């Protein structure tokens, strides 16, 4: 299935900003993070289709997955 993966802040370094990627059915958010060699400890926020999600959540065709490191501001 096709998933749009978006990376932010330093997660983009040596990776990409935004890509359509193919994953087998049943892939979880955590699988995608691991597959990109991103340390789960460094992940601050995960969103699919503009809503917060978790490592365990299963993805479905055409989902937009956004992966952010721990960030803040205000």
């Amino acid at each position, binding site marked *: 299935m096709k998933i749009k993966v*978006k990376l*932010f*802040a*330093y997660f*983009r370094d040596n990776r990409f*900003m935004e890509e359509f990627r193919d994953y087998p059915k049943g892939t979880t958010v955590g699988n995608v993070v691991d597959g990109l060699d991103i340390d789960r400890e*460094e992940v*601050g*926020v995960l*969103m699919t289709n*503009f*809503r*917060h999600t978790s490592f365990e959540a299963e993805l479905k065709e055409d989902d937009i997955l*956004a992966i*952010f*490191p*721990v*960030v*803040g*501001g*205000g």
Partner: protein
Amino acid sequence: MKDRIFRVNLTDMTTTVEDVPESWAGHGGRGLTSTIVAAEVDPTCHPLGPKNKLVFAPGLLSGTVAANSGRLSVGGKSPLTGTIKEANGGGTAAQLMARCGVKALILEGQPADDKWFSLAVTPEGVTIEEETELVGKGNFAVLETLSTRLENNPAIITIGPAGEMKMAAANISIKDPDGGIRSNGRGGLGAVMGSKRVKFISVTPGDAKLEIADPEAFKAANRTFAKALVDHPVSQALGQYGTNVLVNIINESGGLPTKNFTQGQFEGHEKISGETMHDTIKERGGRVKHNCHPGCVIQCSQVYHDADGKKLTSGFEYESIWAMGADCCVDNLDHIAMADKLMDDIGIDSIETSVAFGVAMEAGILEFGDGEGVCRMLKEDVATGTGLGRVIGNGAGSVGRTYGVTRVPVVKNQAIPAYDPRAIKGIGITYATSTQGADHTMGYTIATNILNVGGAVDPLTKEGQVELSRNLQIATAAIDSTGMCLFIAFAALDNEECLPALIDLLNARFGISLTADDVVNLGKYILKTEREFNEKAGFTNLDDRLPEFFYNEPLSPHNVVFDFSGEEIDTFWDF
């Protein structure tokens, strides 16, 4: 040096130095400005008349070596909201004022004629002098002239043309360590300073030092405290990307107010994002990290250069970039930076003014996206005080009333900042209930609603939002009393050693024995004191509401409205 109250009466041009009344002794920063305003200012007075007072107070830890302790609180009755107001900012003034032994500096009265004055604060007291050369000048000219006129590198607190013209969005500007500007931004306190006809205040402590009751314990506590700050990943991200790292994440959440609050996402978000800004700064030889006062270990500030590699602006914050960017649909970071610099020079709040431009665009005065037009209008209208310039300089509400716009994002007439309350509901509770009009810093629920700091509360449901906002508003009021920058809160919410170390710092500074409960009670006392002032000024629970359009215009992409009833909002005050 003993802390004292420095008082300046501009009606009869007298100055005094007084002992600190016992009931004020435990207060600093916002707790002290609000206590003094509540005690001495008639809540029904005209904010720009002789009965209002302008109170400056360094935080309880300002002037010490404690990390991030250099915030200066300024308080009074706000000409923008009509409520009590405290605005705090960085720069070098809080630390030098504390070293002068200033617990608070109170400006009262009003000169009878139309002369302008400057004040000089030293450990001996305050002197008043007539000022002619700098009247009408922008803040950068003021800083430059004073850097040669005055000796010993004093701290400078100044107002620009907006403050002189008593615009309700005028801020108070404070010099940073590199001659840049930090602002006590919100609520128009620069207009109050202008109404007292004080153009600038210099602060020179000489060799004066402040006393620490238990220096060893203080050092130890500061070590733990600074380590907690430095180690927290949010602090590290703030150093690298600045607060503007938020553009992309708030956009992704669907809560980035766009085109005068008609959409929750901005097409041009990537062009104005923290990531783009970081790369641009590096390319052009600016500074990614910068501190607004010595002793800050987080360094969220930065120096942004133009395409020719010349400094354009510093302290380029997410809220300003959102407001001029997404809210006005300007996707050119250089135009936003130029507008930011102009607003620093004019001495006007970059949130209020930019949101006012968003409303002006909706009214058809300018096209959405016209960043150059905004810069031109700032120079030709706002800085010079044309009729239109004053309408804008009096804030978003003023523009809406003048041009008959109904979509005007304000609470208690203060512009709503960078997070849409329909898609991030906790912050809507903060906007509605804050004692000072819409202000994200009063109870920053974004931490928990969006960033997963201090737990997680779903931004799109109502559950837990009132309690979240209440806890954060109480904690924030207490933190605003210490002189600490609010960004310590990320570490304080997550790191168990951080808050106890902060309390140890207070105890070691004053030789007292505060507990965590005392700190919570301090926060509650401050909120209640402020609310009581507002009630006496005529505000009721019906003022704790959001503008109508948030309840009936669904926001994309989630297609949500703000759906808290009045009764639900009012439970905020059940403590």
